[in-house]
């Protein structure tokens, strides 16, 4: 009623029809299809209309003289057309083009799995990290359900596309994490150091990555930490294996979170059957502080620091001493610091400064051997990004990696102290060019110089993607990737060169209506790998870069969260063909860490009545090889296949209380990771061996996560921003 009244009231003002110009016509887009709902109006006037279903429009104006006609539609380039109003009729047919928008344009997906929190065009989300069964809250565990990776139960680390775990690097907010995994005993699985809740986004590149990243032959994992928290809160996590408390306080444009985590597996191991005899089950404490501060309008400063201490003692059989059990004692101290600033200098130039510092020491006591090893690493990085136009962006920057590694070994033959320091200065530049929203090319170069190895390397990288249809695209990537030889070699000599892998990747991806298919073919050519002469690591004079190898394969990924209501599943399959002749290999052979077939089937179901997310993860890896010195064939023995059915259940009890339960290898499949043999044969000429088994056949976790905020008080609700 009121509206009507107002309307009538206003109508009395509008009796001013003098000389009028009629503007009419048709708006089309792209290939000439009619565009309905486009806004057609005269600039700085109230005269205008929306196009109808056939794209036609017509309106009158009493204005005269020069005017500008504007045509606009969401996602399209705005058209401004000069017209002259003379009281007659103007007919216009206008075609408008889709606006170039990097968000909607083609992206390079070769080798890359990206997870963000807003866009739909992603294959894996941060929530998946937490809720995929088998991951048990481990970043790396979650990635092991993706194609191109394999689950190697005796390690727990990332093995990507036929690469060893040390060929992958982890970066947090742009800077390197020198020691991303917890220290662990040989042949027992480890986990990542970082809580997945810290991260808002993940880019997991399994090859062909940007020139910005070096020192990785196989893959980089780029983690970006959460932005500003939204309110003061206290988080409590209680797990069957430990507890964590984290407190967040906000101030104007900034926030601090302090957390303390204590883990102790003693109570758990007291109940659940274990395959090993633990004298001191793993116990660790971590204190961490993270600070966020907005600077200016666009800048954001992030700082994270953590101190962690852990200890464990486990009885391990020594094949060199008739399989007798000896205490393996490991104590680790880790200090990590990471800072980054992101912001703009002027209107367009974006700058990112990142720095990290790692101090890690491991003290190992085993039988008659005592080894103390220490890594001290820093990484400084500065990247500039300048968008010349929407379609042409140039990125350039430099970084300095400094690392000192030392090892003090007390063995029956005496004390051996070795150490080395390496400084690696790198510069890189990369251009990203969109020919259209359908075609993108990225060309980059990286130059790195190592002072310890006295070597200068140039790595070209190129990748491109082409959108075939609205829903499908293919991408290509090619590049040279260098990495320093392992610390264990560099300790003894600097007469080595960087190892190299050339990547060739072809990828096809199609996403239609919450269903994604990805097919990726790749080939990696390994060159200049370190060879250690005849099996002995302690003769640096025999070291050379004469090793070589290859890895080729096919990765398939299918994800569907459409077909089953409230259900979501993905199937990941990887085929891998790889051989190498490196380190102590007598000839070209399949390495121990590689399995030919890897399959993961993940299913998640949301039961709304129970407010529960239940997840299932079935994994299979075909038998890997290992070397049995009793056999004439090198790496000719086969392990059991790896099989596991993992389950997890997350229950949202209250808005702020989550219960979580998980079991890995629920069906208790027998898994075994080859055998470890004595260095010398026994009196019968046989090398005695001991089976490498997982820590336990099954692993259970239960947990409760509680978040406390000052709710209910409106005055506390406005602290955001």
């Amino acid at each position, binding site marked *: *009623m009121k*509206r009507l009244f107002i309307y009538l009231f206003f109508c009395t003002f509008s009796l001013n029809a003098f000389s009028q110009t009629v503007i009419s016509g048709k708006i089309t887009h792209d290939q000439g299809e009619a565009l309905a709902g486009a806004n057609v109006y005269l600039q700085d006037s109230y005269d*205008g209309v929306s196009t109808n279903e056939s794209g036609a429009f017509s309106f009158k104006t009493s204005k005269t003289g020069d005017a500008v006609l504007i045509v606009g539609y*969401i996602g399209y380039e705005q058209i401004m057309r000069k017209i002259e109003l003379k009281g007659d009729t103007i007919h216009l047919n206008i075609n408008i083009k889709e606006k170039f928008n990097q968000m909607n344009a083609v992206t390079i997906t070769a080798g890359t799995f990206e997870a963000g929190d807003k866009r*739909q065009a992603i294959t894996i989300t941060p929530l998946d990290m937490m809720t995929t069964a088998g991951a048990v809250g481990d970043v790396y565990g979650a990635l092991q359900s993706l194609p191109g990776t394999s689950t190697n139960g005796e390690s727990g680390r990332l093995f990507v596309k036929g690469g060893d775990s040390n060929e992958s690097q982890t970066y947090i907010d742009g800077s390197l994490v020198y020691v991303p995994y917890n220290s662990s005993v040989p042949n027992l699985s480890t986990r990542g150091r970082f809580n997945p809740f810290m991260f808002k986004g993940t880019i997991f590149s399994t090859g062909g990555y940007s020139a910005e990243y070096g020192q990785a032959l196989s893959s980089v994992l780029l983690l970006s930490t959460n932005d500003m928290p939204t309110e003061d809160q206290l988080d409590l996590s209680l797990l069957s294996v430990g507890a964590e408390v984290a407190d967040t306080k906000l101030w104007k444009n900034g926030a601090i979170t302090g957390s303390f985590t204590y883990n102790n597996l003693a109570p758990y191991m007291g109940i659940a059957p274990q395959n090993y005899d633990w004298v001191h089950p793993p116990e660790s404490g971590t204190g961490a502080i993270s600070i966020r501060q907005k600077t200016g309008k666009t800048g954001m400063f992030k700082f994270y620091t953590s101190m962690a201490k852990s200890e464990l003692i486990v009885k391990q059989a020594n094949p060199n001493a008739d399989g007798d059990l000896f205490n393996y004692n490991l104590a680790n101290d880790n200090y990590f610091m990471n800072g980054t600033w992101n912001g703009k200098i002027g209107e367009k130039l974006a700058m990112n400064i990142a720095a990290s510092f790692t101090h890690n020491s491991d003290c190992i006591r085993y039988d008659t051997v005592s080894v103390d090893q220490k890594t001290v690493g820093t990484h400084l990085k500065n990247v500039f990004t300048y968008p010349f136009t929407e379609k042409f962006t140039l990125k350039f920057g430099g970084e300095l990696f400094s690392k000192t590694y030392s090892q003090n070994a007390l063995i029956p033959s005496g004390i051996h102290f070795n150490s080395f320091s390496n400084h690696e200065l790198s510069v890189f530049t990369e251009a990203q060019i969109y020919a259209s929203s359908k075609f993108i090319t990225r060309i980059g170069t990286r130059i790195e110089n190592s002072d310890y190895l006295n070597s200068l390397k140039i790595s070209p990288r190129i990748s491109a993607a082409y959108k075939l249809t609205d829903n499908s695209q293919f991408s290509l990537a090619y590049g040279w990737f260098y990495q320093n030889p392992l610390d264990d070699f560099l300790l003894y000599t600097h007469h080595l060169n960087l190892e190299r892998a050339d990547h060739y990747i072809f990828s096809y991806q199609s996403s239609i209506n919450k269903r994604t298919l990805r097919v990726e073919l790749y080939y990696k050519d390994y060159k200049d790998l370190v060879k250690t002469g005849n099996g002995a690591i302690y003769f640096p004079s025999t070291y050379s870069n004469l090793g070589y190898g290859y890895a080729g394969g096919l990765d398939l990924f299918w994800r569907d969260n459409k077909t089953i209501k409230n259900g979501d599943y993905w199937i990941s399959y990887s085929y891998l063909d790889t051989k190498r002749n490196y380190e102590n290999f007598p000839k070209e052979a399949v390495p121990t860490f590689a399995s030919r077939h890897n399959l993961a089937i993940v299913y998640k179901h949301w039961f709304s009545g129970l407010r529960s997310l239940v997840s299932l993860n079935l994994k299979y890896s075909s038998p890997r090889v290992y070397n049995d010195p009793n056999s004439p064939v090198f790496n000719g023995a086969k392990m059991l296949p790896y099989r596991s059915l993992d389950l997890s259940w997350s229950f949202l009890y209250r808005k702020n209380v989550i219960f979580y339960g998980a079991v890995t290898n629920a069906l208790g499949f027998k898994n075994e990771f080859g055998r470890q043999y004595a260095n010398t044969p026994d009196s019968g000429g046989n090398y005695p061996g001991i089976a490498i088994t997982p820590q336990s056949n099954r692993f259970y976790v239960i947990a409760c996560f509680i978040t406390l905020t000052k709710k209910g008080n409106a005055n506390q609700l406005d602290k955001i921003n």
Partner: protein
Amino acid sequence: MKRIILSLTVVLCSLAAMAQNPQFFRSMGETLGQYSTCKSVADFQSLGNKFQMIANVEKNEWLPLYYYAHCYILMSFIDQADAAKKDSYLDVAEKSVEKLIEMVPTESEVYALQSFYYTARLVVNPVERGHKFSRLSNQAIGKALKLDMTNQRAQLLKIQGDMGSARFFGKDPNTFCPQAADLLANWDNFKPKSPIYPVWGKDQLESIVKGCQ
């Protein structure tokens, strides 16, 4: 009759403002009058187009931009399209809400709209976004109510949110019914600051109250 007199008073009070820019008020009045006839995505798109046109002329007025964003939020609810399309509507709404907060940082209605916008983002993908956007939406309501306890849209959204969360957590949503009934009973006593000020929400509230019985 009472309502007409009320409206008349309001209109007369705003005459001074209107006199300065009669065309703005006339166009806004005309366009607002078409709200009730809008049903489809296309309807709201052309309505949004009109508000956009007005916003482009009246760069210092926040209300055209407010309704423009409101139209795009409604479009995301109505359109049965895929998530990417819905998000593209909400990208438009997001930009406008950000601009509105810059223009009138102490206007309660803007935060109520922001809360509505966050809810729309949530609805696109509740499983992935539920946690984050329900929090953001609540915070925006908190801000709106802090600036104006009597803001009807903020109160309505709060009741809607509280009922939704009660339903989700297996509690009785009807505990919020008295609040809803109370808000509805007093709805018409609210005097908008001008005839073009936001007044939407009565229909939604009525259906909530109906659902309570």
